[in-house]
């Protein structure tokens, strides 16, 4: 079977992470979610995969190249143009991206699967294909049930008894939602679907193509299926999925590195004073990272590669990106540190440069300047003074 992965979106709900990393490349414990999708496709015999790219296309293209290292064949359909300032993305929408590929080469010449590159899944693709063929429709959407209060984030469908879709709502408010069956961003199509997609214009699968299929009374089915689906389409989603992986709640998820103690995994070449660090599992520490004596790490926590966690630092339930230095004075609680930003799972963002706290959290390759050192001394003195007073009060 042939496949397409939708990877051209800007990922605005995952900013600022997606300022540097396109959404499909967001990792769950080091492995980009798109890599897991490709492995799943391969395991179900879908070895020819076209990927549409636009925003930060080179990050995707340089990572997967022609797919040979993953045992598949990958080709890219870039949406945008080269200008004097460099590449300028101009995404065609999910359906528009499909149409562009079809008009270019007629690639989709049999039943094919299209997946959004923004979720970790373990769908039985063979079973989904079997059900699609049994229904005999032009298109099938793989569905899952969601809690009512969350349907506003997704496409919602109303099914007839034979699972034919009679209504499709894109991101309805919960009061108006016709069901709690949501679109997981996984579709199976027949090549005739292209009759419904206009040429050369931006066209969206959820917002335009599906409502058009319903309006035309087309053979269009919803297949509710039971599988694990972890949406990383938002900062809170990335946060939740990584925590679940660390806690062993994602069935079949391969932990990276080696388990060196119960619930503690590390990459190679780590420098950790095990006797003098306080570590509460589950914790993953990437290769070439250093955890100094006196550091306190409380899981579920992921420290990336090449990080330094200094003596005295407190890191609680955090996701720390590669090459991060965490000063001994820092107290990080439920934060994502990524590309110079300190991000809260609810979306609050503090840039460490703007807030001038590079002395506290920064790229470990950057030297501290005199201003940083001044601030560090000021706060550090204040804290020790305060702690001394507190101890004296306790003694008294």
């Amino acid at each position, binding site marked *: 079977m042939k496949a397409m992965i939708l990877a051209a979106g800007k990922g605005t709900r995952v900013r600022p992470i997606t300022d540097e990393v396109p959404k499909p490349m967001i990792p769950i414990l080091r492995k980009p979610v798109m890599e897991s999708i490709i492995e799943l496709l391969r395991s179900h015999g879908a070895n020819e995969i076209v990927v549409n790219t636009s925003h930060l296309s080179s990050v995707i293209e340089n990572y997967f190249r022609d797919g040979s290292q993953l045992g598949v064949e990958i080709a890219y359909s870039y949406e945008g143009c080269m200008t004097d300032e460099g590449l300028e993305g101009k995404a065609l929408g999910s359906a528009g991206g499909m149409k562009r590929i079809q008009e270019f080469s007629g690639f989709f010449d049999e039943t094919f699967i299209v997946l959004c590159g923004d979720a970790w899944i373990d769908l039985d693709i063979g079973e989904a294909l079997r059900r699609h063929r049994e229904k005999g429709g032009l298109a099938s959407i793989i569905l899952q049930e969601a809690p009512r209060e969350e349907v506003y984030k997704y496409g919602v469908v109303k099914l007839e008894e034979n699972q034919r879709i009679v209504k499709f709502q894109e991101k309805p408010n919960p009061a108006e939602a016709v069901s709690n069956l949501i679109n997981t961003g996984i579709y199976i199509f027949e090549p005739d679907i292209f009759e419904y997609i206009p040429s050369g214009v931006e066209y969206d699968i959820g917002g335009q193509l599906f409502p058009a299929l319903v309006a035309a009374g087309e053979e269009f089915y919803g297949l509710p299926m039971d599988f694990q689906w972890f949406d990383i389409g938002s900062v809170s989603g990335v946060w939740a999925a990584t925590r679940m992986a660390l806690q062993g709640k994602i069935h079949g998820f391969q932990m990276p590195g080696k388990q060196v103690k119960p619930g503690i995994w590390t990459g190679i070449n780590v420098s950790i004073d095990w006797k003098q660090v306080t570590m509460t599992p589950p914790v993953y520490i990437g290769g070439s990272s250093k955890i100094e004596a006196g550091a306190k790490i409380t899981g579920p926590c992921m420290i990336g590669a090449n990080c330094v966690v200094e003596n005295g630092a407190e890191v609680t339930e955090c996701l720390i990106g590669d090459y991060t230095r965490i000063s001994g*004075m*820092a107290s990080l609680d439920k934060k994502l540190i990524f590309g110079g930003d300190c991000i809260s799972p609810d979306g609050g963002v503090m840039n460490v440069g703007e807030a001038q706290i590079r002395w506290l959290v920064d790229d470990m390759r950057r030297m501290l300047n005199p201003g940083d050192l001044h*601030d560090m001394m*000021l706060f550090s003195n*204040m804290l020790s003074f305060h702690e001394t007073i507190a101890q004296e009060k306790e003694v008294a």
Partner: protein
Amino acid sequence: MKHSTRTEGEFTIVTIEESRMDAAVAPEFKNCIAQLLAGGANRLVLDISSVQFMDSSSLGVLVSLLKMVGNRGDLMIAGAKGIVADLFKLTRMDRVFRMVPDVGSVLGTVAA
């Protein structure tokens, strides 16, 4: 730096009316509070509930003001929220300053 000052009982309440407290306002901010301290106010409540962003230089000013107050009185921080509250926590200054949710609760708790 836009702010207003009022007195309630023994407390001097300074309400910051800026959305950003950064290096651009830090020196003026320091002078302004230092003058209040010099004028005899020694139980200060700083209402920063309108502040959306604070950087290390403004937090540093708060620390030096706290030193000035010393044992003579209080410098309490009211209404820190979002990334402003985060800044206090990240730097552990939430352990050094007396942090309260809002001015009302300061007056309540301290009076009690």
